[in-house]
C-alpha cells in the first residue's frame, strides 16, 4: 500500500480533481492495451442482456414448441420470428435462453463476491488489527477451508441444503472469503503501525471507526483486482454446479444447465446447443480475467513501470 494514500486520509484532500485525472489515466492505459476495451464492451453487452433480457429476447425462454424442435440457427420460429441461434430439444429459443442465462451468471457472480468479500474483509480486518488468538482462529479456519477442494465443499452443501439461487450465492460466496481475508489481514498488519492510524488513535477515535473508516479505505484498491479474477472463477464454478444439476431450479435457464441438456443431442450433431452457451461462458470469464489483469497493471505502479 502506498504512503501517499495514507497521507491523503489524514489531510482529507478533496479527491475530485485527482479522481478525474486517475480516471483519464485509466481510460488511456485501457485504450493503449486494447484487450481491456473488448472486455469492457463485452461485459457491457452481457450486463444489458442481464438487465433487459426480458425485453430483448425474441421469445419466452421457456416457451416450448414441439413442432419446431432442434431447429438450426437462423431457422424460422413461431409467429414469423427467427431462432437466431436455433432451438433446443423442446423447441425453446436458444438465443432467448442465452440472454436469460446472462442474468443468472452475472447476478450469482457479483452477489457471491459481495458475500465472500464482505466476510473476508471483516475477518481480515479483525485478524490483522487485533492479532493474537483472533488472528489465529480466523486464519486457521481459512486454512481448513482451503484444505478442502472447493468444488467438493460446494457439492456437499448444495446436496444437503438443496439448490436455488440463494444457496448458490451463499456457497460460492463463502467459498471465496479466505482470499480476501488473507490480503486484507496482511495490509492491515502493516497499516496498523502507520502514523495516520496512530493519529486517529491519539485523537480518541473508537476502534470500529479506526478499522472501518481509517484502515479500510486504504486497502480497498488491491481488492478490486482480486474481485475481478474472483467473479471469473465464481462464474466458472456456477456453470459447473449448474451443469451437475446443483444450480438454480430447472425453470430458470442458465448457461451451465443448457450445456448439460446439450449432451443428449451431441451425437446427433446439434452443435449449436453445445457451442453457444459455452462461448458465452468463455467470453464472460475471459473478459473478467482480462479486466483483472489490466486492473493489476494499472494499480501496481511497480508493474506499470515495466510496461
Amino acid at each position, binding site marked *: 500500500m502506498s504512503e501517499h494514500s495514507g497521507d491523503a486520509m489524514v489531510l482529507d484532500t478533496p479527491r475530485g480533481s485527482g479522481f478525474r485525472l486517475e480516471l483519464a489515466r485509466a481510460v488511456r492505459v485501457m485504450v493503449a492495451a486494447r484487450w481491456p476495451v473488448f472486455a469492457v464492451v463485452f461485459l457491457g453487452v452481457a450486463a444489458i442482456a442481464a438487465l433487459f433480457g426480458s425485453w430483448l429476447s425474441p421469445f419466452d425462454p421457456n416457451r416450448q414448441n414441439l413442432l419446431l424442435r432442434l431447429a438450426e440457427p437462423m431457422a424460422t420460429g413461431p409467429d414469423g420470428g427467427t431462432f437466431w441461434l436455433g432451438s433446443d430439444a423442446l423447441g425453446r429459443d436458444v438465443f432467448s435462453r442465452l440472454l436469460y442465462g446472462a442474468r443468472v451468471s452475472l447476478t450469482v457472480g457479483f452477489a457471491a463476491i459481495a458475500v465472500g468479500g464482505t466476510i473476508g474483509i471483516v475477518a481480515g480486518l479483525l485478524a490483522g488489527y487485533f492479532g493474537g488468538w483472533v488472528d489465529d482462529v480466523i486464519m486457521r479456519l481459512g486454512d481448513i477451508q482451503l484444505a478442502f477442494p472447493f*468444488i467438493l465443499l460446494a457439492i456437499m452443501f448444495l*446436496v444437503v441444503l*438443496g439448490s436455488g439461487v440463494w444457496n448458490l450465492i451463499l456457497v460460492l460466496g463463502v467459498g471465496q472469503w479466505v482470499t480476501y481475508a488473507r490480503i486484507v489481514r496482511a495490509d492491515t498488519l502493516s497499516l496498523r503501525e502507520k502514523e495516520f492510524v496512530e493519529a486517529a488513535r491519539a485523537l480518541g477515535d473508537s476502534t470500529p471507526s479506526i478499522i472501518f473508516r481509517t484502515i479500510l479505505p486504504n486497502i480497498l484498491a488491491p481488492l478490486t483486482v482480486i474481485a475481478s479474477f474472483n467473479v*471469473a472463477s465464481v462464474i466458472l464454478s456456477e456453470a459447473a454446479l449448474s451443469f*451437475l444439476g446443483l444450480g438454480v431450479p430447472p425453470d430458470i435457464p442458465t448457461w451451465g444447465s443448457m450445456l448439460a441438456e446439450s*449432451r443428449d443431442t451431441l451425437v446427433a450433431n446439434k*452443435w449449436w446447443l453445445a457451442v453457444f452457451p459455452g462461448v458465452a461462458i468463455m467470453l464472460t*470469464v475471459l473478459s473478467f480475467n482480462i479486466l483483472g489483469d489490466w486492473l493489476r497493471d494499472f494499480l501496481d505502479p511497480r508493474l506499470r513501470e515495466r510496461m
Partner: protein
Amino acid sequence: MGAYIVRRLLQSVIVVIGVTLVSFLALQAGGDPTYLFVSERASLEEIEAARQALGFDRPLHVQYLSFVGDLTRGDFGQSLSYRQPAMEIVLEALPATIELTLFAMICALLLAIPLGVLAAINRGTAWDGSITTMSMLGQSIPSFWMGIMMILFFGLYIRLFPISGHVPFLAPLMAGDFGTAFANLPRTIYHLVLPGIAVGTYSLARNTRLVRSSLLEVLEQDYVRTARSKGLPEMRVLVHHALRNAWLPVVTIIGLEFGFLLGGVVVVETVFSYPGIGRLLFAAINQRDIPLVQAGVILLAGIFTLLNLVVDLVYVRLDPRVKLAGGRG
C-alpha cells in the same frame, strides 16, 4: 526444522478434523437426516424406529463422536443406493480418478514449463504474446465445455481418440498383476487423451503464466545479472542460475494443483462417462446417497491434505529460507 514439521503435522490433523466436521454437518444441515434413510411411505412409528436405530435421536456432539469413531475404524457407513459399505465403492473408483488426475497434471506441467520459459525469455515478442494470450484463453474455458467440444469434434468429425471408456492401469498394478497393467498402459493412455485435455487445459494455462512470471522475476535479480556480466552463455545462466529458483513457486502449487484439477475431474468424468469418483459422486448426488457423497468427499479431501503436507515438507528441503520464516501461514 523439527518444530516446523511438528506444527505442520498438527495443522494437518486440525484440517482433517475440520473435514470430518464439515462432512458430518453437511448431513445434518438439511434437517432430520432420518428421512434420507427411510422409504417415502414409512409410517411415523417406522421413522421413529429408524431414527433410534441410526442414532439420530442422540445429541449432536455424541453423534459426531460416534461418526468419527466409525471413520477411524474404516466404517464410512452404507451406501443407500448400492447397499454396500460406501468406502468400498469409492475405493474401487479411486484408481481411475487418480489415473486421470495424474495424467492431466503431468502433461500440463511438462508443457507449461517449456512454454512459460519460451514466453519469458522472448518477452514482449510475438512468442510471448501468443503464449500469454492462449493461456488467458485456457483459463477462461470451463473444463466440462472443453470436454463437450472434444466429444463433438472427435466423436463426429475426426475419430482419432475414443470419446468414452477407460482401460484400467493402476487397479491391476496394485493387485500385483504387472503383466496386465503394462499391457494395458498404451490403451489406458489412449483413452485418457480427451478427458485429460479437458481436465488439464486450465492447469496448463495457469502454470504457463506462473512459470513465465516466476522466471521473469528471477531474471531481474542481481545474481542473474552478475552471471551474465561474467560472460556465461545465456543457456547456462538460464539453467544453472535462473530456473533453479524459478521452479520453487511451481513446486508449491503442485499440491494445490491437485485440488484445482479435482474440481475439473469431478465434472469432466461425468461428461466422458469415465468410471471414477467424479461420476460416482454425480450419481450419488442425484440419488441423494449422502453416505456415499460423504465417503467420496472425505477420501478426496484426505488425499488433498496429505499431498499438501508432503509438498510443504519437501519444500522445506528445497528452500532453506522457510526454516527462518518459521513456516507460518
